[in-house]
Protein backbone atom coordinates (compact mmCIF):
# COMPACT_ATOMS: atom_id res chain seq x y z
CA UNK A 1 0.00 0.00 0.00
CA UNK A 2 2.66 2.62 0.74
CA UNK A 3 3.60 2.60 -2.95
CA UNK A 4 0.04 3.39 -3.95
CA UNK A 5 -0.08 6.14 -1.32
CA UNK A 6 3.12 7.63 -2.66
CA UNK A 7 1.63 7.50 -6.13
CA UNK A 8 -1.55 9.31 -5.24
CA UNK A 9 0.30 11.94 -3.22
CA UNK A 10 2.66 12.66 -6.10
CA UNK A 11 -0.12 12.45 -8.66
CA UNK A 12 -1.96 15.18 -6.81
CA UNK A 13 0.90 17.59 -7.43
CA UNK A 14 1.87 16.67 -10.97
CA UNK A 15 0.03 19.66 -12.29
CA UNK A 16 1.14 22.07 -9.60
CA UNK A 17 -0.70 25.18 -10.72
CA UNK A 18 -3.99 23.40 -11.33
CA UNK A 19 -3.80 21.60 -7.99
CA UNK A 20 -2.74 24.79 -6.23
CA UNK A 21 -5.69 26.71 -7.62
CA UNK A 22 -8.09 23.93 -6.72
CA UNK A 23 -6.74 23.83 -3.17
CA UNK A 24 -7.03 27.62 -2.96
CA UNK A 25 -10.63 27.36 -4.15
CA UNK A 26 -11.38 24.71 -1.57
CA UNK A 27 -9.75 26.86 1.15
CA UNK A 28 -11.91 29.84 0.25
CA UNK A 29 -15.05 27.70 0.01
CA UNK A 30 -14.47 26.17 3.45
CA UNK A 31 -13.64 29.57 4.93
CA UNK A 32 -16.80 31.08 3.45
CA UNK A 33 -18.86 28.12 4.57
CA UNK A 34 -17.47 28.31 8.11
CA UNK A 35 -17.99 32.05 8.49
CA UNK A 36 -21.47 32.07 6.94
CA UNK A 37 -22.55 29.15 9.11
CA UNK A 38 -21.19 30.94 12.17
CA UNK A 39 -23.04 34.12 11.19
CA UNK A 40 -26.29 32.16 11.06
CA UNK A 41 -25.48 30.48 14.37
CA UNK A 42 -24.69 33.87 15.90
CA UNK A 43 -28.01 35.18 14.72
CA UNK A 44 -29.84 32.36 16.46
CA UNK A 45 -27.62 32.59 19.54
CA UNK A 46 -30.30 34.48 21.46
CA UNK A 47 -32.77 31.71 20.77
CA UNK A 48 -30.30 29.08 21.80
CA UNK A 49 -29.41 30.88 25.00
CA UNK A 50 -33.04 31.16 26.01
CA UNK A 51 -34.14 28.91 28.84
CA UNK A 52 -37.12 26.63 28.63
CA UNK A 53 -38.19 27.39 32.18
CA UNK A 54 -38.74 31.10 31.63
CA UNK A 55 -41.67 33.05 30.29
CA UNK A 56 -41.89 36.61 29.08
CA UNK A 57 -45.07 38.61 29.59
CA UNK A 58 -45.57 41.74 27.50
CA UNK A 59 -48.34 43.96 26.28
CA UNK A 60 -50.60 42.05 23.90
CA UNK A 61 -50.72 44.93 21.43
CA UNK A 62 -47.00 45.18 20.85
CA UNK A 63 -43.66 45.43 22.56
CA UNK A 64 -43.71 49.21 22.46
CA UNK A 65 -46.73 49.31 24.75
CA UNK A 66 -46.11 48.90 28.45
CA UNK A 67 -47.77 47.19 31.39
CA UNK A 68 -48.65 48.58 34.84
CA UNK A 69 -46.32 47.71 37.71
CA UNK A 70 -49.41 46.66 39.62
CA UNK A 71 -49.43 43.38 37.68
CA UNK A 72 -46.31 42.31 39.58
CA UNK A 73 -48.05 41.09 42.72
CA UNK A 74 -50.79 39.39 40.75
CA UNK A 75 -48.38 37.48 38.54
CA UNK A 76 -46.39 36.38 41.57
CA UNK A 77 -49.45 34.63 42.92
CA UNK A 78 -50.05 32.61 39.74
CA UNK A 79 -49.76 28.89 40.39
CA UNK A 80 -46.58 27.49 38.85
CA UNK A 81 -44.71 30.83 38.76
CA UNK A 82 -41.79 30.49 41.17
CA UNK A 83 -40.05 33.86 40.65
CA UNK A 84 -40.96 37.04 38.83
CA UNK A 85 -38.91 40.01 37.72
CA UNK A 86 -39.56 42.96 35.42
CA UNK A 87 -37.81 45.60 33.45
CA UNK A 88 -37.69 48.03 30.57
CA UNK A 89 -35.73 48.26 27.39
CA UNK A 90 -33.73 51.46 27.96
CA UNK A 91 -32.23 52.07 24.54
CA UNK A 92 -29.42 54.46 25.49
CA UNK A 93 -26.00 54.86 23.92
CA UNK A 94 -22.56 55.68 25.24
CA UNK A 95 -21.11 59.04 24.11
CA UNK A 96 -21.93 58.59 20.43
CA UNK A 97 -24.94 57.11 18.77
CA UNK A 98 -22.90 54.51 16.93
CA UNK A 99 -21.80 53.11 20.29
CA UNK A 100 -24.94 51.15 20.48
CA UNK A 101 -25.53 48.14 22.75
CA UNK A 102 -28.38 46.47 24.60
CA UNK A 103 -29.27 48.10 27.95
CA UNK A 104 -32.10 47.35 30.33
CA UNK A 105 -33.54 48.73 33.54
CA UNK A 106 -34.30 45.66 35.69
CA UNK A 107 -35.61 44.90 39.13
CA UNK A 108 -32.11 43.94 40.20
CA UNK A 109 -32.52 41.35 42.95
CA UNK A 110 -35.16 39.19 41.24
CA UNK A 111 -33.50 39.59 37.86
CA UNK A 112 -30.22 38.13 39.09
CA UNK A 113 -32.12 35.40 40.94
CA UNK A 114 -33.81 34.27 37.76
CA UNK A 115 -31.17 34.90 35.12
CA UNK A 116 -28.55 32.71 36.75
CA UNK A 117 -26.42 32.45 33.62
CA UNK A 118 -25.02 35.90 34.41
CA UNK A 119 -22.09 35.09 36.65
CA UNK A 120 -21.00 37.83 39.07
CA UNK A 121 -18.63 37.71 42.00
CA UNK A 122 -20.64 37.84 45.28
CA UNK A 123 -19.09 41.14 46.37
CA UNK A 124 -19.88 42.73 43.00
CA UNK A 125 -23.40 41.45 43.16
CA UNK A 126 -23.91 42.88 46.65
CA UNK A 127 -22.40 46.20 45.67
CA UNK A 128 -24.71 46.41 42.64
CA UNK A 129 -27.83 45.57 44.58
CA UNK A 130 -27.02 48.04 47.35
CA UNK A 131 -26.25 50.98 45.06
CA UNK A 132 -29.38 52.56 43.62
CA UNK A 133 -27.29 54.09 40.81
CA UNK A 134 -25.31 50.91 40.38
CA UNK A 135 -25.05 49.02 37.11
CA UNK A 136 -23.47 45.87 35.73
CA UNK A 137 -22.03 45.25 32.30
CA UNK A 138 -21.01 42.16 30.40
CA UNK A 139 -17.32 41.34 30.10
CA UNK A 140 -17.15 42.10 26.36
CA UNK A 141 -18.99 45.38 26.72
CA UNK A 142 -16.68 46.52 29.52
CA UNK A 143 -13.70 45.56 27.38
CA UNK A 144 -15.07 47.40 24.40
CA UNK A 145 -15.27 50.72 26.26
CA UNK A 146 -12.46 50.07 28.72
CA UNK A 147 -14.77 50.28 31.75
CA UNK A 148 -13.58 49.17 35.12
CA UNK A 149 -15.44 48.53 38.32
CA UNK A 150 -16.12 51.82 40.12
CA UNK A 151 -16.16 53.86 36.89
CA UNK A 152 -18.80 56.49 36.40
CA UNK A 153 -20.64 55.66 33.19
CA UNK A 154 -22.87 58.23 31.54
CA UNK A 155 -25.40 57.01 28.98
CA UNK A 156 -27.50 59.18 26.71
CA UNK A 157 -31.12 58.13 26.57
CA UNK A 158 -33.20 57.91 23.41
CA UNK A 159 -36.49 56.53 24.70
CA UNK A 160 -35.88 58.26 28.04
CA UNK A 161 -34.12 61.48 27.06
CA UNK A 162 -31.26 63.01 28.99
CA UNK A 163 -27.92 61.94 30.39
CA UNK A 164 -28.02 59.13 32.90
CA UNK A 165 -25.18 58.50 35.30
CA UNK A 166 -24.34 55.07 36.64
CA UNK A 167 -21.59 53.57 38.74
CA UNK A 168 -20.28 50.32 37.35
CA UNK A 169 -20.49 47.87 40.24
CA UNK A 170 -19.95 44.57 38.51
CA UNK A 171 -18.78 42.91 35.33
CA UNK A 172 -20.57 39.68 34.59
CA UNK A 173 -19.38 36.68 32.66
CA UNK A 174 -21.59 34.23 30.82
CA UNK A 175 -21.96 30.81 32.38
CA UNK A 176 -21.38 29.33 28.94
CA UNK A 177 -20.56 30.42 25.41
CA UNK A 178 -24.14 31.11 24.41
CA UNK A 179 -24.56 33.94 26.90
CA UNK A 180 -24.39 37.46 25.49
CA UNK A 181 -21.63 39.28 27.40
CA UNK A 182 -22.35 42.69 25.98
CA UNK A 183 -25.46 43.83 27.85
CA UNK A 184 -25.79 46.62 30.40
CA UNK A 185 -28.23 46.35 33.32
CA UNK A 186 -29.17 48.86 36.01
CA UNK A 187 -31.89 49.38 38.62
CA UNK A 188 -35.43 49.82 37.42
CA UNK A 189 -36.13 51.83 40.58
CA UNK A 190 -33.55 54.40 39.56
CA UNK A 191 -35.27 54.89 36.19
CA UNK A 192 -38.68 54.98 37.79
CA UNK A 193 -37.78 57.55 40.44
CA UNK A 194 -36.31 59.88 37.87
CA UNK A 195 -39.38 59.50 35.70
CA UNK A 196 -41.64 60.32 38.62
CA UNK A 197 -39.90 63.68 38.86
CA UNK A 198 -39.50 64.48 35.19
CA UNK A 199 -42.24 62.60 33.35
CA UNK A 200 -44.73 61.35 35.94
CA UNK A 201 -47.08 60.00 33.25
CA UNK A 202 -44.42 57.46 32.20
CA UNK A 203 -43.63 56.25 35.72
CA UNK A 204 -44.85 52.96 37.12
CA UNK A 205 -44.78 51.30 33.69
CA UNK A 206 -43.02 48.03 32.94
CA UNK A 207 -41.87 46.85 29.51
CA UNK A 208 -42.01 43.15 30.29
CA UNK A 209 -42.14 40.63 33.08
CA UNK A 210 -39.87 37.60 33.34
CA UNK A 211 -41.44 34.60 35.01
CA UNK A 212 -39.54 31.58 36.21
CA UNK A 213 -41.66 28.44 36.21
CA UNK A 214 -41.12 25.29 38.21
CA UNK A 215 -40.91 22.97 35.20
CA UNK A 216 -40.75 23.61 31.43
CA UNK A 217 -43.92 21.52 30.90
CA UNK A 218 -45.90 24.11 32.81
CA UNK A 219 -45.18 26.82 30.22
CA UNK A 220 -48.53 26.51 28.43
CA UNK A 221 -50.64 26.38 31.57
CA UNK A 222 -48.87 29.25 33.35
CA UNK A 223 -48.99 31.45 30.23
CA UNK A 224 -52.73 30.93 30.00
CA UNK A 225 -53.26 31.66 33.67
CA UNK A 226 -51.30 34.91 33.46
CA UNK A 227 -53.00 36.13 30.31
CA UNK A 228 -56.47 35.25 31.57
CA UNK A 229 -55.83 37.35 34.72
CA UNK A 230 -55.65 40.49 32.61
CA UNK A 231 -58.23 39.61 30.01
CA UNK A 232 -60.55 42.52 29.28
CA UNK A 233 -58.35 44.90 31.27
CA UNK A 234 -56.87 48.08 29.80
CA UNK A 235 -53.56 46.36 29.15
CA UNK A 236 -54.00 42.79 28.04
CA UNK A 237 -50.92 40.60 28.16
CA UNK A 238 -49.20 38.14 25.90
CA UNK A 239 -47.12 35.51 27.67
CA UNK A 240 -44.82 33.16 25.82
CA UNK A 241 -41.66 31.18 26.46
CA UNK A 242 -38.42 33.06 26.36
CA UNK A 243 -37.49 30.96 23.31
CA UNK A 244 -40.64 31.99 21.45
CA UNK A 245 -39.99 35.57 22.47
CA UNK A 246 -36.42 35.42 21.14
CA UNK A 247 -37.66 33.74 17.97
CA UNK A 248 -40.06 36.60 17.32
CA UNK A 249 -37.05 38.86 16.80
CA UNK A 250 -35.27 36.37 14.63
CA UNK A 251 -38.17 35.45 12.36
CA UNK A 252 -38.24 38.90 10.86
CA UNK A 253 -34.90 38.20 9.26
CA UNK A 254 -35.27 34.49 8.85
CA UNK A 255 -35.50 34.76 5.07
CA UNK A 256 -32.11 36.47 5.01
CA UNK A 257 -30.64 33.77 7.22
CA UNK A 258 -32.04 31.09 4.96
CA UNK A 259 -30.49 32.87 1.99
CA UNK A 260 -27.11 32.94 3.76
CA UNK A 261 -27.36 29.24 4.53
CA UNK A 262 -28.20 28.58 0.91
CA UNK A 263 -25.20 30.58 -0.26
CA UNK A 264 -22.91 28.61 2.03
CA UNK A 265 -24.13 25.40 0.42
CA UNK A 266 -23.87 26.82 -3.09
CA UNK A 267 -20.22 27.68 -2.39
CA UNK A 268 -19.56 24.03 -1.59
CA UNK A 269 -21.39 22.89 -4.72
CA UNK A 270 -19.26 25.23 -6.84
CA UNK A 271 -16.01 23.91 -5.42
CA UNK A 272 -17.37 20.44 -6.03
CA UNK A 273 -17.67 21.27 -9.72
CA UNK A 274 -14.17 22.78 -9.78
CA UNK A 275 -12.62 19.76 -8.07
CA UNK A 276 -14.55 17.35 -10.28
CA UNK A 277 -13.15 19.16 -13.29
CA UNK A 278 -9.61 19.00 -11.93
CA UNK A 279 -9.95 15.28 -11.29
CA UNK A 280 -11.51 14.63 -14.69
CA UNK A 281 -8.63 16.43 -16.39
CA UNK A 282 -5.94 14.66 -14.37
CA UNK A 283 -7.43 11.26 -15.02
CA UNK A 284 -7.97 11.87 -18.72
CA UNK A 285 -4.30 12.79 -19.09
CA UNK A 286 -3.31 9.54 -17.43
CA UNK A 287 -5.60 6.99 -19.03
CA UNK A 288 -2.64 5.11 -20.53
CA UNK A 289 -0.98 4.99 -17.13
CA UNK A 290 -4.10 3.48 -15.62
CA UNK A 291 -4.21 1.01 -18.51
CA UNK A 292 -0.63 -0.01 -17.75
CA UNK A 293 -1.61 -0.53 -14.12
CA UNK A 294 -4.49 -2.72 -15.27
CA UNK A 295 -2.14 -4.90 -17.32
CA UNK A 296 -0.09 -5.36 -14.15
CA UNK A 297 -3.18 -6.78 -12.45
CA UNK A 298 -4.50 -3.76 -10.58
CA UNK A 299 -8.28 -3.86 -10.43
CA UNK A 300 -11.14 -1.41 -10.26
CA UNK A 301 -10.84 -1.02 -6.48
CA UNK A 302 -7.12 -0.18 -6.64
CA UNK A 303 -7.63 2.41 -9.35
CA UNK A 304 -10.60 3.99 -7.56
CA UNK A 305 -8.45 4.14 -4.44
CA UNK A 306 -5.78 6.06 -6.37
CA UNK A 307 -8.31 8.50 -7.81
CA UNK A 308 -10.34 9.00 -4.64
CA UNK A 309 -7.12 9.33 -2.64
CA UNK A 310 -5.80 12.00 -4.96
CA UNK A 311 -9.06 13.94 -4.68
CA UNK A 312 -8.92 13.54 -0.89
CA UNK A 313 -5.38 14.97 -0.78
CA UNK A 314 -6.58 18.06 -2.61
CA UNK A 315 -9.81 18.61 -0.67
CA UNK A 316 -8.39 17.85 2.74
CA UNK A 317 -5.46 20.22 2.25
CA UNK A 318 -7.90 22.90 1.15
CA UNK A 319 -10.25 22.16 4.04
CA UNK A 320 -7.42 22.13 6.59
CA UNK A 321 -6.24 25.54 5.40
CA UNK A 322 -9.82 26.81 5.31
CA UNK A 323 -10.50 25.62 8.85
CA UNK A 324 -7.23 27.12 10.07
CA UNK A 325 -8.20 30.46 8.55
CA UNK A 326 -11.75 30.37 9.90
CA UNK A 327 -10.53 31.06 13.44
CA UNK A 328 -8.63 34.31 12.75
CA UNK A 329 -11.44 35.36 10.41
CA UNK A 330 -13.97 34.83 13.21
CA UNK A 331 -11.72 36.83 15.52
CA UNK A 332 -11.77 39.65 13.01
CA UNK A 333 -15.56 39.44 12.87
CA UNK A 334 -15.76 39.62 16.63
CA UNK A 335 -13.55 42.68 16.85
CA UNK A 336 -15.08 44.54 13.89
CA UNK A 337 -18.74 43.51 14.13
CA UNK A 338 -19.02 42.54 17.79
CA UNK A 339 -21.89 44.94 18.37
CA UNK A 340 -24.06 43.09 15.85
CA UNK A 341 -22.91 39.63 16.81
CA UNK A 342 -22.29 39.65 20.57
CA UNK A 343 -21.97 35.86 20.52
CA UNK A 344 -19.80 34.76 17.59
CA UNK A 345 -18.43 31.31 18.26
CA UNK A 346 -17.36 28.67 15.75
CA UNK A 347 -19.29 25.58 16.80
CA UNK A 348 -17.66 22.15 16.67
CA UNK A 349 -20.55 21.14 14.41
CA UNK A 350 -19.34 23.68 11.84
CA UNK A 351 -15.89 22.09 11.79
CA UNK A 352 -17.44 18.64 11.44
CA UNK A 353 -19.46 19.91 8.51
CA UNK A 354 -16.25 21.32 6.96
CA UNK A 355 -14.66 17.89 7.23
CA UNK A 356 -17.75 16.20 5.84
CA UNK A 357 -17.72 18.69 2.95
CA UNK A 358 -14.10 17.74 2.15
CA UNK A 359 -14.99 14.04 2.06
CA UNK A 360 -18.16 14.59 0.03
CA UNK A 361 -16.45 16.88 -2.49
CA UNK A 362 -13.62 14.35 -2.92
CA UNK A 363 -16.04 11.44 -3.32
CA UNK A 364 -18.27 13.18 -5.80
CA UNK A 365 -15.37 14.39 -7.92
CA UNK A 366 -13.75 10.94 -7.91
CA UNK A 367 -16.85 8.98 -8.90
CA UNK A 368 -17.04 9.76 -12.60
CA UNK A 369 -13.28 9.53 -13.32
CA UNK A 370 -13.14 6.23 -11.41
CA UNK A 371 -15.98 4.89 -13.43
CA UNK A 372 -14.39 6.02 -16.69
CA UNK A 373 -11.07 4.43 -15.83
CA UNK A 374 -12.73 1.18 -14.82
CA UNK A 375 -14.85 1.09 -17.95
CA UNK A 376 -12.13 2.05 -20.45
CA UNK A 377 -10.85 -1.04 -22.28
CA UNK A 378 -7.13 -1.51 -21.73
CA UNK A 379 -6.38 -1.74 -25.43
CA UNK A 380 -8.16 1.51 -26.25
CA UNK A 381 -6.31 3.37 -23.51
CA UNK A 382 -2.98 1.96 -24.63
CA UNK A 383 -3.65 2.94 -28.26
CA UNK A 384 -4.22 6.51 -27.17
CA UNK A 385 -0.54 7.25 -26.74
CA UNK A 386 0.66 5.04 -29.59
Amino acid at each position, binding site marked *: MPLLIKMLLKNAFRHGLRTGLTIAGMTIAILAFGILTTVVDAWYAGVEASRANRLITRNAISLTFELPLSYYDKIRQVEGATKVSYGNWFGAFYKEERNFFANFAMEAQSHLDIVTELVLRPEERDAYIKDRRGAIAGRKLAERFGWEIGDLVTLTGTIFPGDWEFVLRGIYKGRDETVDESIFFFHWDYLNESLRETMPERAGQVGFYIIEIARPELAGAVSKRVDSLFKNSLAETLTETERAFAMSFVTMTEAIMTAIQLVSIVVIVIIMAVTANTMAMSVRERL*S*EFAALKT*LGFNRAHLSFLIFGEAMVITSLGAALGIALTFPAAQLFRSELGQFFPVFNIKPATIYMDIAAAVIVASVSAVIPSYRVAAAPITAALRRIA
Partner: protein
Amino acid sequence: MSAPFIGIRGLSKSYMRGERALPVLKNINLDIAEGEFLALMGPSGSGKSTLLNLIAGIDRADEGSIDIEGVDITTLGEASLTAWRSDHVGFIFQFYNLIPVLTALENVELPLVLKEMSRKERKERASLLLGLVGLSERVDHYPGQLSGGEQQRVAIARAMVTDPSILVADEPTGDLDRASAEEVLNLMRRVNEEFGKVVIMVTHDPRAAEKAHVIRHLEKGVLNAAPH
Protein backbone atom coordinates in the same frame (compact mmCIF):
# COMPACT_ATOMS: atom_id res chain seq x y z
CA MET B 1 3.27 -35.26 -29.24
CA SER B 2 2.49 -33.17 -26.17
CA ALA B 3 0.11 -30.17 -26.35
CA PRO B 4 1.77 -26.87 -27.32
CA PHE B 5 2.43 -24.31 -24.61
CA ILE B 6 0.01 -21.95 -26.29
CA GLY B 7 -2.60 -23.30 -28.68
CA ILE B 8 -4.77 -20.91 -30.63
CA ARG B 9 -7.70 -22.32 -32.63
CA GLY B 10 -10.09 -20.54 -34.96
CA LEU B 11 -9.51 -17.13 -33.44
CA SER B 12 -11.48 -14.29 -35.02
CA LYS B 13 -12.14 -10.71 -34.08
CA SER B 14 -13.74 -7.77 -35.79
CA TYR B 15 -14.34 -4.17 -34.84
CA MET B 16 -17.52 -2.28 -35.55
CA ARG B 17 -16.87 0.60 -37.86
CA GLY B 18 -20.21 2.35 -37.77
CA GLU B 19 -22.76 -0.19 -39.02
CA ARG B 20 -20.21 -2.49 -40.61
CA ALA B 21 -18.15 -5.12 -38.86
CA LEU B 22 -14.53 -4.80 -39.88
CA PRO B 23 -12.71 -8.12 -39.57
CA VAL B 24 -9.27 -7.70 -38.01
CA LEU B 25 -8.33 -11.32 -37.30
CA LYS B 26 -9.70 -14.15 -39.43
CA ASN B 27 -9.61 -17.72 -38.22
CA ILE B 28 -6.14 -17.66 -36.71
CA ASN B 29 -4.53 -20.99 -35.78
CA LEU B 30 -1.20 -20.84 -34.05
CA ASP B 31 0.88 -23.05 -31.79
CA ILE B 32 3.64 -21.68 -29.65
CA ALA B 33 6.00 -24.15 -28.02
CA GLU B 34 7.46 -23.93 -24.55
CA GLY B 35 10.59 -21.77 -24.56
CA GLU B 36 9.80 -20.24 -27.92
CA PHE B 37 10.73 -16.72 -29.01
CA LEU B 38 8.17 -15.67 -31.62
CA ALA B 39 8.25 -12.56 -33.74
CA LEU B 40 5.01 -11.32 -35.31
CA MET B 41 5.52 -9.17 -38.37
CA GLY B 42 3.28 -7.60 -40.93
CA PRO B 43 2.14 -4.32 -42.39
CA SER B 44 0.53 -1.66 -40.30
CA GLY B 45 -3.09 -2.44 -39.53
CA SER B 46 -2.71 -6.16 -40.19
CA GLY B 47 -3.84 -7.05 -36.66
CA LYS B 48 -0.53 -7.79 -34.92
CA SER B 49 -1.30 -5.78 -31.79
CA THR B 50 -4.80 -7.19 -31.68
CA LEU B 51 -3.51 -10.77 -31.74
CA LEU B 52 -0.90 -10.01 -29.11
CA ASN B 53 -3.49 -8.39 -26.85
CA LEU B 54 -5.77 -11.39 -27.14
CA ILE B 55 -2.97 -13.76 -26.15
CA ALA B 56 -2.07 -11.47 -23.24
CA GLY B 57 -5.66 -11.44 -22.02
CA ILE B 58 -6.31 -7.70 -22.30
CA ASP B 59 -8.78 -8.00 -25.14
CA ARG B 60 -11.67 -10.31 -26.00
CA ALA B 61 -12.03 -12.45 -29.14
CA ASP B 62 -15.30 -12.96 -31.00
CA GLU B 63 -14.65 -16.60 -31.74
CA GLY B 64 -12.05 -19.29 -31.12
CA SER B 65 -10.03 -20.48 -28.18
CA ILE B 66 -6.66 -19.68 -26.64
CA ASP B 67 -5.27 -22.51 -24.54
CA ILE B 68 -2.37 -21.51 -22.38
CA GLU B 69 -0.84 -24.15 -20.14
CA GLY B 70 -4.12 -26.04 -20.21
CA VAL B 71 -6.43 -23.06 -19.53
CA ASP B 72 -8.68 -21.63 -22.22
CA ILE B 73 -8.43 -17.99 -21.28
CA THR B 74 -11.35 -17.00 -23.54
CA THR B 75 -13.65 -18.69 -21.01
CA LEU B 76 -12.38 -16.73 -18.00
CA GLY B 77 -14.47 -14.01 -16.39
CA GLU B 78 -13.13 -10.49 -15.96
CA ALA B 79 -11.77 -10.94 -12.44
CA SER B 80 -10.20 -14.35 -13.10
CA LEU B 81 -8.65 -13.03 -16.30
CA THR B 82 -7.11 -10.11 -14.41
CA ALA B 83 -5.73 -12.48 -11.82
CA TRP B 84 -4.47 -14.89 -14.50
CA ARG B 85 -2.76 -12.02 -16.29
CA SER B 86 -0.92 -10.81 -13.24
CA ASP B 87 0.38 -14.34 -12.64
CA HIS B 88 1.27 -15.37 -16.18
CA VAL B 89 1.99 -12.39 -18.39
CA GLY B 90 4.62 -9.67 -18.40
CA PHE B 91 4.06 -6.64 -20.66
CA ILE B 92 6.57 -4.55 -22.57
CA PHE B 93 5.16 -1.58 -24.48
CA GLN B 94 6.55 0.57 -27.25
CA PHE B 95 6.42 3.66 -25.05
CA TYR B 96 7.56 1.82 -21.90
CA ASN B 97 4.51 2.99 -19.89
CA LEU B 98 6.42 3.36 -16.66
CA ILE B 99 4.77 5.27 -13.82
CA PRO B 100 6.50 8.67 -13.92
CA VAL B 101 6.00 9.44 -10.22
CA LEU B 102 7.76 6.28 -9.08
CA THR B 103 11.50 5.57 -9.18
CA ALA B 104 12.95 2.80 -11.32
CA LEU B 105 13.04 0.52 -8.29
CA GLU B 106 9.48 1.35 -7.30
CA ASN B 107 8.25 0.77 -10.84
CA VAL B 108 9.74 -2.68 -10.80
CA GLU B 109 8.35 -3.30 -7.32
CA LEU B 110 4.83 -2.21 -8.27
CA PRO B 111 3.43 -5.53 -9.60
CA LEU B 112 4.58 -7.21 -6.38
CA VAL B 113 2.26 -4.99 -4.35
CA LEU B 114 -0.48 -7.38 -5.44
CA LYS B 115 1.42 -10.43 -4.21
CA GLU B 116 1.74 -11.77 -0.70
CA MET B 117 5.22 -10.54 -0.03
CA SER B 118 6.95 -8.49 2.63
CA ARG B 119 8.18 -5.03 1.81
CA LYS B 120 11.76 -6.19 2.25
CA GLU B 121 11.31 -9.15 -0.07
CA ARG B 122 9.74 -6.91 -2.67
CA LYS B 123 12.62 -4.46 -2.55
CA GLU B 124 15.18 -7.23 -2.77
CA ARG B 125 13.49 -8.86 -5.69
CA ALA B 126 13.08 -5.55 -7.54
CA SER B 127 16.77 -4.68 -7.01
CA LEU B 128 17.76 -8.09 -8.25
CA LEU B 129 15.80 -7.61 -11.45
CA LEU B 130 17.17 -4.10 -11.98
CA GLY B 131 20.66 -5.61 -11.58
CA LEU B 132 19.80 -8.20 -14.19
CA VAL B 133 18.95 -5.52 -16.74
CA GLY B 134 22.12 -3.64 -15.81
CA LEU B 135 20.54 -0.71 -14.02
CA SER B 136 21.74 -1.19 -10.44
CA GLU B 137 23.12 2.35 -10.51
CA ARG B 138 19.79 3.84 -11.50
CA VAL B 139 17.43 2.50 -8.83
CA ASP B 140 16.51 5.94 -7.50
CA HIS B 141 16.11 7.61 -10.87
CA TYR B 142 12.68 8.58 -12.10
CA PRO B 143 11.65 7.54 -15.63
CA GLY B 144 12.05 11.13 -16.79
CA GLN B 145 15.73 10.96 -15.82
CA LEU B 146 16.39 7.82 -17.87
CA SER B 147 17.06 7.38 -21.60
CA GLY B 148 14.51 5.53 -23.73
CA GLY B 149 16.64 2.40 -23.76
CA GLU B 150 17.05 2.52 -20.00
CA GLN B 151 13.34 3.01 -19.51
CA GLN B 152 12.63 -0.01 -21.69
CA ARG B 153 15.08 -2.07 -19.63
CA VAL B 154 13.25 -0.99 -16.46
CA ALA B 155 10.04 -2.08 -18.18
CA ILE B 156 11.58 -5.48 -18.90
CA ALA B 157 12.57 -5.80 -15.25
CA ARG B 158 9.03 -4.86 -14.26
CA ALA B 159 7.57 -7.42 -16.66
CA MET B 160 9.87 -10.11 -15.25
CA VAL B 161 9.51 -9.37 -11.56
CA THR B 162 6.44 -11.53 -10.97
CA ASP B 163 8.13 -14.41 -12.78
CA PRO B 164 5.48 -14.79 -15.50
CA SER B 165 5.66 -17.59 -18.03
CA ILE B 166 4.98 -15.36 -21.03
CA LEU B 167 6.48 -12.03 -22.02
CA VAL B 168 4.58 -10.00 -24.61
CA ALA B 169 6.22 -7.03 -26.30
CA ASP B 170 4.53 -4.67 -28.78
CA GLU B 171 7.24 -3.01 -30.85
CA PRO B 172 9.60 -2.79 -27.89
CA THR B 173 12.31 -1.16 -29.99
CA GLY B 174 9.98 1.01 -32.06
CA ASP B 175 11.02 4.14 -30.26
CA LEU B 176 14.71 3.38 -29.72
CA ASP B 177 17.94 4.10 -31.56
CA ARG B 178 19.93 1.25 -33.00
CA ALA B 179 22.27 0.76 -30.03
CA SER B 180 19.55 0.88 -27.40
CA ALA B 181 17.37 -1.39 -29.50
CA GLU B 182 20.19 -3.88 -29.67
CA GLU B 183 20.56 -3.86 -25.89
CA VAL B 184 16.87 -4.35 -25.34
CA LEU B 185 16.69 -7.19 -27.87
CA ASN B 186 19.69 -8.95 -26.35
CA LEU B 187 18.03 -8.68 -22.99
CA MET B 188 14.84 -10.23 -24.31
CA ARG B 189 16.87 -12.97 -25.85
CA ARG B 190 18.54 -13.63 -22.52
CA VAL B 191 15.20 -13.68 -20.73
CA ASN B 192 14.08 -16.29 -23.23
CA GLU B 193 17.22 -18.42 -23.09
CA GLU B 194 18.30 -18.19 -19.45
CA PHE B 195 14.89 -18.04 -17.82
CA GLY B 196 12.92 -20.07 -20.33
CA LYS B 197 10.19 -17.49 -20.81
CA VAL B 198 8.00 -17.65 -23.87
CA VAL B 199 8.52 -14.34 -25.66
CA ILE B 200 6.03 -12.99 -28.19
CA MET B 201 7.20 -9.84 -29.90
CA VAL B 202 5.45 -7.67 -32.47
CA THR B 203 7.91 -5.78 -34.63
CA HIS B 204 8.34 -3.98 -37.91
CA ASP B 205 12.09 -4.26 -37.78
CA PRO B 206 13.57 -7.29 -39.60
CA ARG B 207 16.76 -6.97 -37.58
CA ALA B 208 14.73 -7.28 -34.40
CA ALA B 209 12.87 -10.26 -35.80
CA GLU B 210 16.18 -11.99 -36.46
CA LYS B 211 16.61 -12.51 -32.73
CA ALA B 212 13.52 -14.73 -32.65
CA HIS B 213 13.38 -18.48 -33.28
CA VAL B 214 10.22 -18.21 -35.30
CA ILE B 215 8.90 -15.37 -37.41
CA ARG B 216 5.23 -15.33 -38.44
CA HIS B 217 3.65 -12.84 -40.81
CA LEU B 218 0.17 -11.41 -40.56
CA GLU B 219 -1.46 -10.01 -43.65
CA LYS B 220 -4.95 -8.46 -43.45
CA GLY B 221 -5.84 -10.55 -40.41
CA VAL B 222 -4.59 -13.82 -41.85
CA LEU B 223 -1.55 -15.65 -40.56
CA ASN B 224 0.79 -16.84 -43.34
CA ALA B 225 1.72 -20.46 -43.54
CA ALA B 226 4.25 -21.65 -40.98
CA PRO B 227 7.83 -22.10 -42.24
CA HIS B 228 8.68 -25.68 -43.29
